[in-house]
């Protein structure tokens, strides 16, 4: 006779992409690269979701250009997700996008009990609307304060300062950190970061992983953040990466 048909109760994990679709994203195939990176990351994300009995991973996406709109409005189980291509054109209403997400993180429609949401902001430029008001509105929601907020800068024109404000206080020390904007200057690095956010980070937010003692930099158990973030993937050395002094 089989084991009784029961399972560990689970909680929803809301994963929301905020994608810059401004006109500049049309240049150098950036929009296509982002569509591809997200599409390619879905099988891995579904696998992580399957391995985490404690979480129901639900994906949504906001696009922002002249204004912000839900690209994928319905929280969709990652296993059922079919990524529709984003199209570029317009300016960069990033603040408006934050307002949309702020509305979605109110309870209701947010469930009363959940895992920390994961918000991934991807941009290649400067906000053209009132970013500060949008961010302030977002951060008034308790679920946004609890959320894991990541940002990916595409190319070298992205406004790293606003992305850092979205993430939160800049960590001390130098070098790459998940609590700094991740700089993707080519399609491969972008795909690695998207894959990392949609698998390693989703895993960390939904099912606790092995912890290591505080001797290691940044990710440790004593981290002040409410979710310890996994190591970034080793990426190809990017000329724009801050590698520290070359000669001393």
């Amino acid at each position, binding site marked *: 006779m089989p084991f009784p048909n029961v399972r560990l109760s689970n909680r929803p994990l809301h994963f929301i992409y905020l994608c810059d679709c401004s006109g500049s994203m049309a240049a150098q195939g950036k929009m296509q690269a982002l569509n591809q990176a997200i599409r390619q990351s879905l099988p891995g994300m579904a696998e992580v979701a399957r391995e985490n009995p404690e979480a129901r991973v639900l994906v949504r996406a906001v696009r922002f250009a002249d204004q912000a709109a839900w690209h994928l409005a319905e929280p969709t189980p990652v296993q059922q997700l079919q990524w529709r291509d984003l199209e570029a054109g317009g300016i960069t209403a990033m603040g408006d996008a934050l307002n949309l997400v702020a509305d979605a993180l109110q309870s209701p429609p947010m469930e009363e009990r959940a895992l920390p949401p994961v918000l991934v902001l991807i941009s290649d430029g400067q906000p053209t609307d009132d970013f500060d008001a949008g961010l302030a509105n977002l951060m008034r929601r308790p679920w946004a304060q609890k959320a894991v907020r990541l940002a990916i800068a595409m190319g070298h024109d992205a406004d790293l300062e606003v992305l850092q404000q979205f993430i939160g206080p800049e960590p001390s020390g130098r070098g790459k950190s998940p609590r700094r904007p991740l700089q993707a200057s080519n399609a491969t690095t972008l795909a*690695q970061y998207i894959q990392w956010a949609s698998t*390693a980070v989703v895993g960390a937010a939904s099912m606790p992983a092995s912890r290591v003692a505080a001797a290691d930099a940044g990710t440790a158990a004593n981290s002040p953040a409410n979710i310890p973030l996994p190591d970034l993937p080793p990426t190809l050395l990017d000329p724009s990466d801050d590698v520290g002094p070359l000669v001393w």
Partner: protein
Amino acid sequence: MNWLLPEGASLPFEGLEQPLLIERGLGGGSQGQVFAVQLGGERLALKWYFPACIARDPQLRERLQQSIRLGAPNRDFLWPLALLDPAPGSLGRFPAAAVGFGYLMGLRPEAFVGAHRHAGGDLAISLQCVLKACFHLAEAFHQLHLKGLCYKDVSLGNLFLEPSSGGILICDNDNVDVDGQSSGSVLGTPGFMAPEVLLGQAKPSARSDLFSLAVLLFRLLTRHDPFRGQRELEIRCLDEPARRRLYGEEALFIFDPSDPRNRPDAIEHSAALITWPIYPASLQRLFEQSFGPGLRQSEQRTLTGQWKQAISLCLDQRQLCSHCGQETFPAAGAPSTCWSCGTPLPAPLRLEMPHGLVSAAAGNELQPHHFDPLVGESIREPLARLVAHPSDPTLLGLQNLSTSRWSGRTTTGQSIELDPGKTCNLAALQQLNSSAGAILVQRP
């Protein structure tokens, strides 16, 4: 996935006479990636570390070498077999991001699936096989601890199950260390960590392993978490601070016999309410011990030997409900009902050995420890198994799994002989003299 080592490449490693063929990547975690590899026709697995992982765990190499020297506690561990460094002068053939080292281990057969799938309700497995897996787990940690080692990171993520047999494989053995030598940086996995480790008051040890083992056994047996009851419902966002309270500062066992404040919720935690009553009180008591007094006093935790004993007794008591066919585990001598359909369970026919009493139900097994108390509980090599007749399932027989011929006598006094592999009908059997000792049929 971006693989650290190129799939399809043959790479030279120090100490290997021939290059290692990197067949394909199997998976990646926070420490590194695992590859299927071939060495001179033999298929093995290679774990290759991220440079960042090597950098933050300076004792990793030494620990692996120590484990390789000591050897696996038993065959349920996917133990490190050899440490691999790139061959001298061959670094140019390794991708820059892959500079480091790794280790070879056995390749996990495909029939073994991640234990998280069981917890997620996504695995067809019998109660008997879950109990067998639990027995193997207790046995594996028994052997590991007897070697003076501790594992440090017991969790669902490091365990694989073979649903058809209850066999297990324990992987990620690279944190294993001599108990008390707190080298290495791993603390464990929240939800499985002992409270004193979670709260930063102690380093992982064999004592904290015992707590994590109890959590893992509970999660396998109930498909629920021992601390998620009413107190979890009060938590809106289940993040790190919340987990510290739930599993550390305010941890309270959901079935604590004297404190009912954290009982499971009828809807949210129904799994626990359905599965906990399946198990006999003798087994439940061990959880109450580990998650009650053992929560704060590590010397109060149930020992691996106690788990082995209680789980093997539970397997001996297995009985199939005559009404619904479900597996039940009633204690001998006490009236009880089926946990699934509520039908009263009649006292079963039992087999009595010098040191064991096994209920007659298809699938139950007679083990060496039922005959000889000195061998210690083991379920790996049963001497006999209860089997149903292939064409008439109402006929129950006992199959001789040993290599020698047994003799016996029927209720009418007739002598019978039972060759290896043969099965005798229990309905007519009075006694069997096996190679290990006497088997008496006890009728209710």
